[in-house]
């Protein structure tokens, strides 16, 4: 039992990623750090982002110079946000022009505030696994 626990802890430690804060470059501006976790998809070269909320319908995409292995992070920057809002962020992972995973999560955004959510890319056909927040994501490394 002890041995199994130790092995589990070691596996957890070895699997840890050092989380980057992609919003660190945007002080004083509303920014949402989206940490994209792998599930079905493990590698993407582009993320299509859709942000929806009361009076908010935004889409954008982030394309890296080359494919990256998940987990990865992306900053959503809202320089003209003038009021706090509850939004749903839908992320679609693309590799070689083909959608390889999708997922969504709920977040709060507010002027000049930084926040973070985690989105797991599941099957692109069913919008992935909705993230209910950090409580369901598991231990943070």
């Amino acid at each position, binding site marked *: 039992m002890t041995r199994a626990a130790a092995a589990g802890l070691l596996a957890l430690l*070895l699997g840890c990623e050092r*989380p980057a804060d992609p919003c660190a470059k945007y002080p004083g501006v509303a920014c949402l750090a989206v940490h994209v976790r792998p599930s079905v998809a493990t590698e993407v070269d582009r993320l299509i982002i859709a942000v929806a909320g009361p009076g908010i319908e935004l889409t954008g995409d*982030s394309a890296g110079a080359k494919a*990256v292995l998940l987990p990865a992070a*992306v900053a959503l920057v809202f320089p003209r946000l003038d009021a706090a809002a509850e939004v749903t962020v839908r992320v679609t992972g693309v590799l070689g022009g083909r959608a390889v995973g999708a997922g969504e999560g709920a977040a709060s955004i507010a002027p000049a505030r930084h926040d973070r959510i985690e989105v797991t890319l599941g099957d692109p056909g069913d919008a992935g696994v909705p993230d209910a927040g950090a409580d369901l994501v598991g231990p943070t490394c």
Partner: protein
Amino acid sequence: MLGLTDAHLGRCADAVQELETFLKLLKAQDDPRIPEAIVARDRCRAELLPRFGTLVVESTPTGAEVRLDPEAPLRDRASGTKGGGPAGVTPFRDEKVTPGEHRVALRQVGFAPLERAVTVRAGETVRLDLPLTPLPSPTVETPPEASQAQPEGKPPGLVLLPAAPAAAPRRTWLWALIGVGAAGAVAAGITLAILFGGRAEPALPAVVFP
């Protein structure tokens, strides 16, 4: 007059040439500048003459300590040359030796000290190549038990004694402690590396919603 200016500035090589030309081209023998030009030219000529000689000392084997004028240490130091104390080791070269008689002393551990007289002339190089004579090995009185163990063909007086087995100090506990400490440090390092040195999560370009 350019030659006089150069002489005043210490540029004697140029000054001598310029003053020679000036004196040759001067038609009037009673020109009042002639005495000054001659004095300046002669002073510069004297300055251009070599004031030192070069001493090169080599020895076999090399690495011997070289002393110049070991018995008159202060005289040559005052004139700017090395004297008295150790001046260097062989192969040795000194390009600023005052002209005149000097004594060169060589010392090397295991070899007989050596001293030679040299005459150094300004602008010339004196070269000494001195073989050093090895000193005889120190003799050790042979204890009776050692004489039996002396291998044949070895010179008498030099004794090879079997080494006495030294009592090994009990330091096992110390090594054990060091080992445990090192293992602990390695384990701590690995744990810290895992905890804080993991792969950084790659960041994709930010999405800015205007």
